[in-house]
């Protein structure tokens, strides 16, 4: 099967400052369907720049990028927008939900654009509701973002990323703003989606988060320095049970202490 993402010798040079910044210096990469990749690196390693290019938000200075067999170099601004709408799902570090807009309306948003122009509001609503069910938030559909916890907001964002059945789900530090337990919860959602066959690429700088993925790519100074499969994957469900057990134990000890 052809790879869903095919990158060859990708370069990105920012000319805006006095000195041109060579952020990505020749990355070649193939991503197969069903992969779950963590893109790692220190800040300034070029991972965010690479992510922006993968997300078709930015164009490479040199090199080719084929997404699902389409060469993005040949597309104009609007065609790129349609490509993002149909083939990509985005999950951001800061969730980026619309404020004062319900969870359901946030999930509906991508369907209001692109090829869904002619789809009826009922269908859109139904599909958005289904995606909220997948992330386990169907009962919170009428909540506003400020009424939801960080983990719940990120799950709404994931539902929004899924709603157009993308080829690749791109997540930029999805757990960056979350505590460790909520991070496990969100990673669990990603693992579940990946098991259903969805391709996921995420940026992270946390090693233990990267361990939930199947493949780890490490960038340094704009080049890939390591590309390896994860040997001992962390499974979110097991991790969650371990945390719950630890919490219960902590409470037990606490109770025992106060009882004594």
């Amino acid at each position, binding site marked *: 099967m052809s790879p869903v993402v095919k990158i060859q010798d990708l370069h990105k040079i920012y000319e805006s400052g006095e000195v041109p910044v060579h952020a990505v210096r020749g990355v070649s990469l193939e991503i197969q369907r069903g992969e779950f990749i963590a893109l790692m690196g220190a800040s300034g390693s070029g991972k965010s720049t690479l992510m922006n290019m993968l997300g078709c938000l930015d164009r490479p200075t040199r090199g080719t990028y084929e997404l699902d067999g389409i060469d993005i170099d040949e597309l104009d601004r609007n065609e790129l927008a349609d490509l993002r709408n149909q083939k990509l799902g985005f999950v951001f570090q800061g969730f980026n939900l619309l404020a004062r807009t319900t969870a359901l309306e946030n999930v509906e*948003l*991508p369907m209001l654009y692109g090829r869904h122009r002619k789809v009826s509001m009922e269908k859109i609503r139904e599909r958005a509701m289904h995606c909220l069910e997948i992330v386990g938030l169907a009962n919170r559909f009428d909540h506003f973002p400020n009424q939801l916890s960080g983990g719940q907001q990120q799950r709404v964002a994931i539902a929004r990323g899924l709603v157009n059945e993308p080829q690749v789900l791109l997540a930029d530090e999805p757990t960056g703003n979350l505590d460790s337990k909520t991070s496990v919860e969100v990673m669990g959602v990603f693992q579940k989606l990946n098991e259903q066959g969805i391709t996921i690429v995420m940026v992270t700088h946390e090693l233990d988060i990267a361990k939930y993925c199947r493949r780890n790519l490490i960038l340094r100074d704009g080049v890939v320095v390591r590309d390896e499969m994860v040997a001992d994957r962390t499974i979110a469900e097991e991790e969650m049970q371990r945390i719950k057990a630890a919490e219960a134990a902590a409470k037990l000890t606490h109770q025992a202490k106060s009882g004594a």
Partner: protein
Amino acid sequence: MHFTNTLRVALRALRRNTLRSLLTALGMIIGVAAVITMVSIGSGAKAQVEAQVASLGQNLITVMPGSYSSGGMRGGFGSSVSLTPEDADAIAAEVANIDGLSAEVRDRNQVLANGLNWNTNVNGVGPDYPYVRNWPMESGAMFTEQDVKSLGKVCVIGKTVADQMFPNEDPVGQTLRIRNLPFRILGVLTPKGFSIFGSDEDDVVLIPYTSHMRRVSRRTSISMIRIQAADADKVAQVKQSVEDLLTQRRRGREPDFTVRTQEELASAATATAKTMTGLLAGIAGVSLIVGGIGIMNIMLVSVTERTREIGIRLAIGAHGKDVLTQFLIEAILLSSLGGMVGVAVGVGGSQALSSYNGWPVLVPTTWIFISVAGSALVGIISGFYPAYKAAQLDPIDALRYE
């Protein structure tokens, strides 16, 4: 994006900021309400002036003598003595499409009756005069053609004269003395009030113009001829025929008369009211522009404040055009909803003014449409730049915006 979706998105965005939307629309509401109220007051005043002009009579044409010129000294219009009763007879006999015609001789005299005296306008006219002036009798009757032919000593009097000379009794059948000649009062005219020039129309005694010329003023010329055309379309044609006839009767002498239609008079009289309306609408228009600037200001703030939102929309597949349409629709919705409420407030305000102050107020329907369309236009103009700015944002920069 489908238009109904864009509309839905715009409505959601406005609902998210209800108070701000209301305050922004308030600028528009005040502007449009001001336009409607001002124009209503102006049109009311204009309609009143027009009604006064119409009270002169309908489809009226007046013939006045020209100016008198002797040895280099020139008199004004009406100073010439060239217009004769024969001119009036000739017009009546030869010009078609005339409904009524009356020669008129004007003078002021002291009149006596009932042991009282009063200085008033004594005008010599023809029997058609009340008809031509659209001025019916209140009691009694107008004198007839026979009275004109026989130089009859008869008269009809205006309401003011009736009140001054006969405060407690019916004047009809009584005698009024003009230049010591007894004139029998045949009737009293209905009150007409003040003319557009501010004089009391009812302060008048009408006698046959022949009696006036021979017995009272001893003039050989008449002051004017009033003609009523058969209908409004015929006014111009009658005017032309009268001019031709009188010119022909002058046999090559310099034309010494002027023929004017009521329209010319009306347009002069309504010009002031029109200027007034224009001025008021202009002032109100300024407030409309201020309202528009308010909308532009809020939309610009809104675009800056919602940069992240725009970034999200662009990232997940909105075209620049979608964002442009969304912000434009928001601006148009704000302004045209404001405009519609403004119309309601303006109409209500004019009615309130009219009942409270007793001002003549007329709400013109065309201006309601102009206001609503104008406010939508203001929305498009003031919304375009902010919307364009939003559409041009780069998704990455917009997403990073704090």
